[in-house]
């Protein structure tokens, strides 16, 4: 039998300069199957082949700076071929601006502070991922943090816009919290992975004196 239809899983750009697409290989019924990624650009008839099948690992195509334009929409397909025939995936349209997924924020610090009337609060600060920081003004990021009691089930998620600092007021003295932060380009693009889990214990003597 000719191979089944392959499927393009996703395409991602870390910084609006390069991007990578991954596909799910076609079920090949035991015959050796070869995959080819082809693409055309909006308004052009010409069809190009994937410039680099290696850099991003198996079943992937990496578009370096030279092959990445963010002035156009890519129409991408993958063709699976074996000795019995071939099959082509559905077209996958890619606009690089919409597939930007930054790396997580870095340098996260958690600091317990006491306000003037001894009210405790937690100050979180963080920095943009190195690449975005260097390109400030070009890649504007928004942040969201989440926290939960260590033994708790439910995360509480808080959107904080472009701030890189946040104050938490309603905390349980004597409890341990887990905190994570992630980021996303301000208009289009995708949330980064969550930053590694960070732990903070609220001391018991921080009891709030009302």
């Amino acid at each position: 039998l000719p191979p089944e239809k392959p499927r393009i899983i996703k395409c991602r750009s870390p910084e609006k300069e390069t991007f990578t697409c991954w596909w799910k290989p076609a079920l090949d019924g035991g015959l050796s199957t070869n995959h080819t990624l082809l693409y055309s650009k909006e308004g052009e008839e010409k069809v190009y082949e994937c410039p680099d099948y290696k850099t991003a690992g198996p079943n992937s195509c990496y578009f370096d700076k030279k092959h990445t334009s963010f002035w156009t929409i890519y129409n991408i397909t993958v063709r699976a071929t074996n000795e019995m025939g071939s099959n082509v995936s559905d077209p996958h349209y890619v606009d690089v601006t919409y597939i930007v997924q930054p790396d997580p924020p870095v340098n996260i610090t958690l600091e317990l502070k006491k306000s003037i009337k001894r009210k405790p609060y937690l100050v979180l600060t963080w920095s943009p991922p190195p690449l975005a920081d260097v390109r400030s003004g070009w890649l504007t990021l928004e942040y969201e943090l989440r926290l939960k009691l260590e033994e708790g089930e439910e995360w509480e998620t808080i959107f904080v816009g472009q701030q890189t600092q946040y104050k938490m007021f309603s905390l349980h003295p004597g409890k341990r919290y887990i905190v994570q932060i992630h980021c996303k380009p301000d208009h289009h693009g995708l949330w980064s992975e969550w930053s590694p889990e960070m732990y903070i214990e609220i001391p018991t003597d921080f009891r709030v004196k009302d």
Partner: protein
Amino acid sequence: PICPNGSGNCQLTLEELFDRAVKLAHYIHYLSSEIFNEFDERYAQGRGFIAKAVNSCHTASLTTPEDKEQAQQIHHEDLLNLILGVLRSWNDPLIHLASEVQRMKEAPETILWKAVEIEEQNKRLLEGMEKIVGRVHSGEVENDIHTPWEGLPSLQLADEDSRLFAFYNLLHCLRRDSHKIDNYLKVLKCRLIHDNNC
């Protein structure tokens, strides 16, 4: 992006093209200001370069709008062509700027990186502007507006003061021209996309 149903071709809207061009032009000018300020602080203090840097940009012959009224009265196709002309006029000097900066004595990494980044992003903006002009222009994309740059020898002069002034002047002109492009694109976007109601 608009992906017309069933047709094999999606297309970026003019608004999306302008959004990206404005953001990129803003970024290029931000870098151009930074590199000028860093160079000025490190190499030009007390040398009185500003007085000498008067009327010596290689793009001076391109008559560009110098106030709000002129920018609003010029036809958008003419302004787009002017932007293309200024961008093209910077292709060559930016290639040499990036390589000559690398030859400078202990040029800081931040100046080096910016020179390369500006050259790359300028090419990118040129690609985008040609696409926008192609969309907006009724006729063929005009390819003739462009001013030659003969400044390479002065970047390689043996006399340090003259050589530093050549760099200063090039970066002064880059800051000025990239600001013009950034400003004109914002005016054009408000005019063509938002009906002057940004």
